[in-house]
């Protein structure tokens, strides 16, 4: 049996991301030995954790057949709110209050997209800027800092370690396991796949479509709140724009992991892989001495590549000869 051109196309389309990733990694490792040092690898995972936590939530939204472009600006909101409330009502109350407010935003988006059936791209793109406005209103446009940075236990989530493992990594891992179980093993998870895979068939199966979509946005908001907590706790002070642009990186990681933009496909584990790929590539670019700003361009290129390969895998060849 010979390998035909079609077979090669199919293989590239299916495993293209991993192949491209392997090529990148080998290139980086040859260019700079430090790339594969243990502490560098740990560093990459650690700095990917916040993005990763957000990507976990967005995975649910995307599998459910929708988009969430509001997560970056929502993360800024959570960070600013928890920092501000920290000094006003103390960390013990600030954290649940911030989670509550962020979930409220998620519920609002979930209502618009799920129950009112508005297009998720438009809704969350609008929310991106609306929430940014909300954040600036809250902070009055100023940077937010905790007054007594050394005297608070609030730094625990972002800076401490348990068994030598940094808390952000631990939280990311724990959340990944929990959400993976939720998505892969529970009836709710099954319904998310059904709603995203074929909404009409889901309705015909007695699945409450609107409610499922609503909950995917709640999960996404919960993850954003968690990411905001990690961010605030790590830096104990923040600008209003800390999460700006992260929505695209998050989406890149999710798509890179293999979730389909059309909904119905993807897993939490694959998203984690996507997050790590993105993290290593960005880190590698820095190590080989490229400017920090180059990663914006590269992230865009990766999104395009991932989307292309997703489509190609569906039609079984890299490009369509038909019109």
């Amino acid at each position, binding site marked *: 049996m010979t390998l035909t051109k079609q077979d090669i196309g199919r293989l590239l389309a299916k495993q293209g991301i991993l192949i491209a990733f392997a090529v990148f990694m080998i290139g980086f490792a040859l260019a700079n030995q430090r790339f594969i040092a243990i502490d560098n690898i740990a560093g990459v995972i650690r700095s990917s954790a916040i993005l990763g936590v957000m990507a976990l939530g967005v995975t649910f939204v995307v599998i459910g057949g929708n988009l969430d472009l509001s997560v970056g600006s929502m993360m800024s909101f959570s960070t600013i709110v928890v920092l501000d409330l920290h000094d006003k009502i103390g960390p013990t109350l600030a954290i649940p209050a911030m989670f509550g407010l962020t979930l409220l935003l998620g519920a609002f988006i979930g209502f618009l997209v799920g129950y009112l059936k508005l297009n998720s791209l438009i809704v969350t793109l609008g929310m991106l800027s609306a929430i940014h406005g909300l954040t600036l209103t809250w902070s009055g446009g100023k940077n937010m800092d905790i007054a007594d940075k050394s005297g608070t236990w609030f730094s625990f989530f972002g800076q401490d370690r348990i068994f030598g493992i940094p808390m952000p990594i631990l939280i990311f891992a724990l959340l990944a396991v929990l959400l993976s*179980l939720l998505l892969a093993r*529970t009836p709710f998870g099954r319904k998310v796949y*059904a709603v995203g*895979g074929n909404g009409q068939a889901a309705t*015909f199966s007695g699945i409450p479509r609107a409610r499922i979509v609503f909950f995917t946005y709640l999960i996404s908001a919960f993850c954003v709140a968690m990411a905001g907590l990690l961010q605030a706790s790590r830096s104990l002070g923040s600008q209003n724009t800390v999460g700006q642009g992260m929505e695209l990186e998050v989406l890149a990681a999710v798509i890179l992991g293999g979730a389909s933009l059309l909904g119905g496909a993807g897993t939490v584990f694959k998203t984690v892989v996507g997050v790590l790929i993105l993290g290593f590539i960005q880190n590698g670019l820095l190590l080989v001495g490229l400017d920090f700003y180059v990663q914006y361009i590269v992230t865009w290129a990766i999104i395009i590549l991932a989307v292309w390969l997703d489509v190609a895998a569906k039609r079984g060849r890299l490009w369509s000869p*038909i019109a």
Partner: protein
Amino acid sequence: MTDPTPVLRLEGIVKSFPGVRALDGVSFDVRPGEVHALMGENGAGKSTLMKVLGGIHAPNEGKIFIAEEPVVMTSPMQAKAKGVVFIHQELSLADELTVAENIFLGELPLKSFGRVDWAKLYARTDAILKKLNVRFTAKTRVGDLSIANQQMVEIGRALTVSPRAVIFDEPTASLTDAEKVVLFDVIADLQSQGVGIVYISHRMEEVFKITDRISVLRDGQYRGTLITADTDEDEVTKLMIGRSLDLSRNESHHEMGDVALEVRGLSCGTLFQDVDFAVRKGEVLGFYGLVGAGRTEIAETIFGLRNPTAGQIYLNGREVRIHSPIDAVRMGISLVPEDRKGQGLVLSMNCRDNMTLPQVDDMTAGPFVSDGAEIAIFDQYRDKLDIRTPGWRQLVGNLSGGNQQKIVIGKWLSMRPDVLIVDEPTRGIDVGSKSEIHSLIRDLAAQGFAVIVISSEMPEVLHVSDRIVAMYSGKVMREFTSEEVTEDNLIQAISGITEKVA
């Protein structure tokens, strides 16, 4: 007699998918001016063979010849350029485009500077539509057409070139009798021009009416070719499934219970008006009528997908309001919908998950879905319905059309509903499985389920029903018991000829 050069010849085609050897050395040829039927059970490999021919799948082994000239097919466009045109089993039209744009997709007539020559496009489309004898125009949006009319558009696509060979993959699955007549005229016309035709169908009466030869596939293997005029249904069936069929009606009369579902004065806008009927436990109630008579809409209303504008629904004697399928499922109503790809299945999900979808909430061990319980249900209905798949992990989208339909039936049967509504349950199903599904329906009734069967196939309704409701244009024309019904009075009733008999 010397055979004329075949327009199309396949030699030793092998095609494997992971876990399935879909085609195992199939050879086959079509002569000019011949209608050649390709038959076989669901999953036998008919569609796959045609996809290999059309460049959609690359074969692992084997050769393709067009007019005895070897070719390698790489895309449907290339196949069309070589004069081989396909009418696929699964519709592949762009809903948002007009009929004309769909028919000429990829080969729109152009003026200078690449502008579309609309006048020419519409003129040529109208000529094709005239040949097809349809009532819609070139400018209609395809999404607004019924499935049957979309099928006619798909057929129209074959008529834009002068083809050497045309392949029809179950073209009549959703056509009415009148539309079938038109289709057969189109085929006869092509035939007289010397075009070779491959005709895939599970309907014996059609195959015997229009074809010259019949080739049979079984489990991916070529089983032989019969001359239509020299054979009969029984011989073909034996070749297909390895045994004869017992087509006699299951006459086992069992006790009927109380009325399970009753509908009084049910109306839904202009779709149907003032519908009354009742179905008892242990009874099969058939709904017969032309496409568009409002039968599907009644089913959808009972299933909570539409809001009635008037009338009541009673379940076990109690009036109920069904606002959504969630209510319907909870009250013990199941609906096997007519459009399996759009409404019945999540193609990106595996076989087992599709089948257990409506009851996944009840299949938990702790917070998690219980794998064991799900697999048990899947295995039970795979055996009961003879579903051909390499395993439950296979994506439903990779199953053959008929096996997909069986997954949908299994999905709703496994709910063990009080009232089971099946809308065109055997569309695209092979003869063997069809008779199994029919006896399954009779069995279910015997076990005390109330079953409603909506079908556009008269033999099917006559075969399974205890009583038959005949509908015409949104109204119940007449109700028949199985003793009083005949083909003639049924046809009269659904064409709106008889006045309503109380």
